[in-house]
């Protein structure tokens, strides 16, 4: 079987695989990932995070407009992730140029797969069990994205681990700060 005819895993399978073994998925299964599919991951992940935040606020009597917050989350997912990927890509350019900007954006987008999985689980717990889940599931999901981000940065920087650690930490802190400011946490 030629490499071109090799069966590629679907987007959903890649989303779950990123959580288990991010480096293998990011190294091998990013190039053929369509832009809309890639950006749908952070859009949905952030949308679910902000939706849970809105539901929590409404339950605690501090209504902020649940639908508006969810839409803001989708928008931030589509905007913030490519911007952080762009900044990280520029910062690692002096060290390694083997990965394109397009690859970086798609890898950063797919890195939020764990946040998407946690977001779905958190929304179910929020709606069915009535729990406050924005921090327990939402923020935990965003934290789990650090590991794939670290893997993506290692790929982009020619396996410079300390640089990748620092950048993954900064990106994680920036995303948490954006969420905290947006929902007033």
């Amino acid at each position, binding site marked *: 079987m030629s490499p071109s005819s090799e069966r590629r895993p679907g987007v959903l399978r890649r989303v779950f695989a990123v959580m288990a073994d991010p480096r293998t998925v990011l190294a091998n299964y990013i190039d053929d990932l369509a832009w809309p599919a890639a950006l749908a991951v952070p859009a949905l992940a952030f949308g679910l995070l902000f939706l849970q935040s809105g539901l929590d606020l409404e339950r605690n009597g501090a209504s902020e407009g649940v639908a508006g917050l969810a839409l803001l989350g989708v928008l931030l997912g589509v905007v913030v992730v490519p911007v952080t990927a762009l900044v990280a890509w520029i910062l690692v350019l002096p060290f390694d140029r083997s990965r394109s900007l397009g690859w970086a954006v798609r890898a950063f987008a797919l890195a939020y797969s764990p946040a998407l999985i946690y977001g779905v689980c958190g929304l179910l717990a929020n709606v069915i069990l009535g729990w406050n889940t924005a921090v327990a599931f939402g923020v935990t999901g965003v934290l789990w994205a650090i590991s794939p981000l670290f893997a993506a940065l290692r790929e982009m920087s020619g396996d410079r681990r300390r640089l990748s650690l620092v950048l993954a*930490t900064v990106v994680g802190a920036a995303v948490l700060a954006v969420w905290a400011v947006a929902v007033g946490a």
Partner: protein
Amino acid sequence: MAKSSKTLSPASGHAMLRMLAFAAVGALMAPRFAEEPEAMVFGAVIGAIAGVVLLAPLRWLLWLVNAKVRKEHGYSGIRKAVGAGFATFVPFAFLAVVAEIGFGWDALTPFAMAGLMAGAGAAGLEVARLGGHRILNLVIGVACGFGLSIVWTMVMVMVQEAHAFG
């Protein structure tokens, strides 16, 4: 000035970063035990020691099940791989500091638990990259991370109960 011949290897760099990360988590945990300011220093020391002690069972288990890696790379290869993988814990610890001190959240437990599981899983995968079985090492890593996070939760619950009844 003569340049020092001693330079930090990647492995020692990871060890120092990891130790600082565990020390930071220990320092953040300390005020839950005691309110005295010096408790944070004590907590940082205990955290740094715990970071060394907690990795030992993970290293030992991965050494036990990876005969091929053991033969080709020895214990030091597995030790370095586990250290490199567990470097993933560092961002979680830093973000815990930002969340607790910067945002004033009470979020140490979810941050530490996620960091322990991510670090242990990454350690298993790093050993797999040396020639071990991917799924087996990942499962051992994640299981160890889960065990570590359970231990963490139990300690936190005991601390809270001790404060409630103390």
